[in-house]
């Protein structure tokens, strides 16, 4: 049985991952029209989602999404829903991998072939997503233990840099009074959506006890603020819009004076690729578990389960390879599209769970 602290690990993973990809870009695009207020809205809705979701999932201790839907909804409705969610999770993991292939090619090893890198990623992610949920949580905790100090170091180092332009930050702050915009909200709420992995990981949580939800919202707010303002302090209010991987260019602007490695980029890259791989593993694990629940039961037949898993993971890998044909622009469009879909998906999931709870309780009464 997992302790409640692993829930915080899942949450932390998502907040940290958020800094890499679409969130800073979407927020910075809207820096003159409503990113700041969107952040506040996102913090409020994100915390509310966490609160509602953990409340309702707690009514189903030790049950994942397939078990809950299976017990409360007709099969004709449950199966397509689970399939759609599995695809969503799969896409989230695949997008992380694809953007990291792009980042690696751009910043780390331009001369390694993109397919070689992707094959490396796919090998570790596919193999590891077969591991059981509890072990994945242990692994996640260890990974956070390694990467969190490095990420904190990067952040502190970034902020105390004398060349950091507080004027640029203050100038962007003057545009705060602006109506929030949907793109930014969708991007910023992704910071808070680590809880959604409970859809499968709830199987190992029995009686999740959450104290101090305000810590989650504070942490999410801080991460969003840092992820939004720090690149602006480095690249200027206007210059920032020319960068695709905002945070990687920011990290590349920081110099470590007294260490073997001079460029902060590599420390940052190491921390984030480790965390991203683990996060992709976790997302594909959820996707795989959801899909497995749609296939005929394999209890007590390990060979058959292995075959099913292999088929699913080969499909996953093939899908990722097919998606490699997209260029950076398409990838971004798909990412933003997915951010929106995911937000509505989360909302729907919470409503569905409340509905399931209502059905189960009425049946019991």
């Amino acid at each position: 049985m997992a302790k409640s602290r692993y829930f915080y690990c899942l949450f932390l993973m998502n907040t940290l991952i958020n800094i890499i990809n679409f969130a800073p870009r979407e927020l910075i695009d809207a820096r003159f029209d409503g990113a700041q207020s969107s952040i506040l809205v996102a913090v409020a809705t994100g915390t509310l989602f966490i609160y509602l979701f953990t409340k309702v999932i707690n009514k189903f201790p030790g049950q994942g999404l397939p078990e809950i839907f299976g017990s409360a909804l007709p099969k004709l409705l449950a199966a397509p829903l689970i399939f759609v969610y599995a695809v969503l999770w799969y896409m989230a993991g695949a997008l992380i991998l694809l953007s990291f292939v792009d980042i690696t090619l751009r910043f780390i090893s331009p001369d390694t072939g993109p397919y070689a890198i992707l094959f490396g990623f796919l090998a570790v992610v596919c193999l590891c997503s077969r591991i059981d949920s509890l072990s994945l949580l242990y692994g996640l905790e260890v990974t956070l233990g390694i990467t969190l100090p490095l990420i904190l170091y990067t952040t502190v180092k970034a902020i105390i840099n004398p060349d950091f332009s507080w004027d640029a930050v203050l100038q962007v702050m003057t545009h705060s009074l602006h109506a929030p915009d949907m793109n930014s909200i969708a991007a910023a709420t992704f910071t808070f959506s680590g809880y959604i992995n409970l859809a499968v990981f709830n199987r190992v949580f029995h009686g999740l006890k959450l104290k101090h939800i305000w810590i989650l919202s504070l942490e999410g707010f801080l991460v969003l603020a840092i992820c939004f303002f720090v690149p602006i302090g480095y690249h200027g209010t206007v210059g920032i819009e020319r960068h695709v991987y905002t945070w990687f260019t920011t990290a590349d602007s920081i110099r470590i004076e007294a260490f073997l490695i001079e460029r902060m980029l590599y420390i940052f890259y190491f921390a984030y690729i480790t965390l991203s791989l683990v996060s992709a593993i976790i997302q594909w694990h959820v996707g795989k578990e959801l899909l497995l629940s749609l296939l005929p039961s394999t209890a007590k037949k390990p060979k058959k389960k292995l075959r099913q898993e292999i088929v699913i993971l080969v499909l996953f890998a093939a899908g990722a390879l097919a998606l490699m044909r997209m260029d950076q622009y398409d990838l971004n469009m798909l990412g933003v599209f997915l951010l929106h879909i995911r937000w509505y998906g989360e909302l729907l999931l919470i409503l569905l769970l409340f509905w399931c709870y209502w059905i189960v309780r009425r049946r019991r009464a």
Partner: protein
Amino acid sequence: MSGQLHKQGVTLEWIRGQLSGFGDLEDKIMAVPSGEVSLLYIKSVTDGQTISRNVVAPFYEMGDPAAYYSYIADYPGSEEVTEGTRALDLLLSGYACIGQAGRLCFFDALKAEVSGVKETITESISQGPSDALGESLAVNLNLIRRRYQSSSLKMEFTIIGNVSKTKVAILYDESRVNHNVLAELKEKLDSLKLDVLQAAGELEKYISSDKLRIFPKTIVTERPDRVVFNLAEGKVAVMLDTTGYAIVLPSIFNDFFTAMDDKIHLPFVGRFLKLLRILGVAMTLWLPALYIAFTSYNPEIVRVQIALLIGGSRATVPYPSFVEVILMMIMMEFLTEASLRLPRAIGPTATTVGGLILGQAATAAGLIGNIMIILVSVVAISNFLIPLNMMSFSIRVLKYFFVVAAAVLGLVGVVICLVGFTMYLCSQRSFGQPYFKLFFLDTLGTTLRKKSGGE
């Protein structure tokens, strides 16, 4: 007649109940026509000669149980006891119990097995006890019992091996052991079908469930104090006759990095030493891989000066860094293996010739960069920081995975390998205990504080 005696000896019955499960308990009735006497002692801590000469022989010479009893009670060092716990303590510390007509007397027959106990070889420490387990099971049990004088320490014996008939003892502290682990172990031992069993490591291989594994799941140790330390933590020890090693299970990753003198040092010194070991593992795993990544893929990661230095030292090397690293590391493995097998007199020669002369010549010939020589030595030395041999060997093999990954994908390969192995470690279980976690105290806590309903 004998039944009557047993009924009268209420404390004797109680002692028998307490010591049930003691395979090494000797429970005898000595009878002459005029009556009889019960004799009870633990074989592994008592001296058989003392008992036969001073306890058994006088009884038949005197032929009168009552007179014999008073003879025993008056013997120097003997003690008459009515209290249960005291009686158990005496029995466990090497006394023989003589019961006659409900009275109990304890006779000092401690076996002090001093000769034949050698010093530790593979797990040496700077301070602390230096006794090593010997090759006789009786001696080893004596070494353990002397350090663990509690009635809850149980010993069970079985025999494994159709031909070798190896005597195997399972030791555990009944009040602390995790009974699931014990049941799983017994089941595995029962299902073993072997002809010959000779070494503890061999048994380790048979009782671990998965065949393809890189990390050891049970500690193989030659230190009785380590066995005792682990027994007190609720673990199970398995000892074999004819081998100087015991197996301790379940063992998690962290256990392999604990040296027995960590407890002796001051807290900060102990922490520092542990940190050194972890650093050593990191160095031995990553240095060769990073060398490949930095020279062949990402020279821009390190400072310009370092990159130039490495590049300069490799100027004459006619092949890529991957070949250089593999070549030198294999060379180093040859040296380690050779110095293990060589007779002690020639050992130093081999290291001198291999390490100094060969390294010097290789760099002079331009086959290997100077930095590579430094690196290989660091890798070889830091590998031996790990206190337990099994783990040290695992890490030795593991670094080649990193080397290959770095050769294929550069720095990305190293990271992929790191994530893969972290996850693999976390997915492992040693007899149901999580093998690798960030806060390993959680895991230990389950065995120590399992009644408080932890994780």
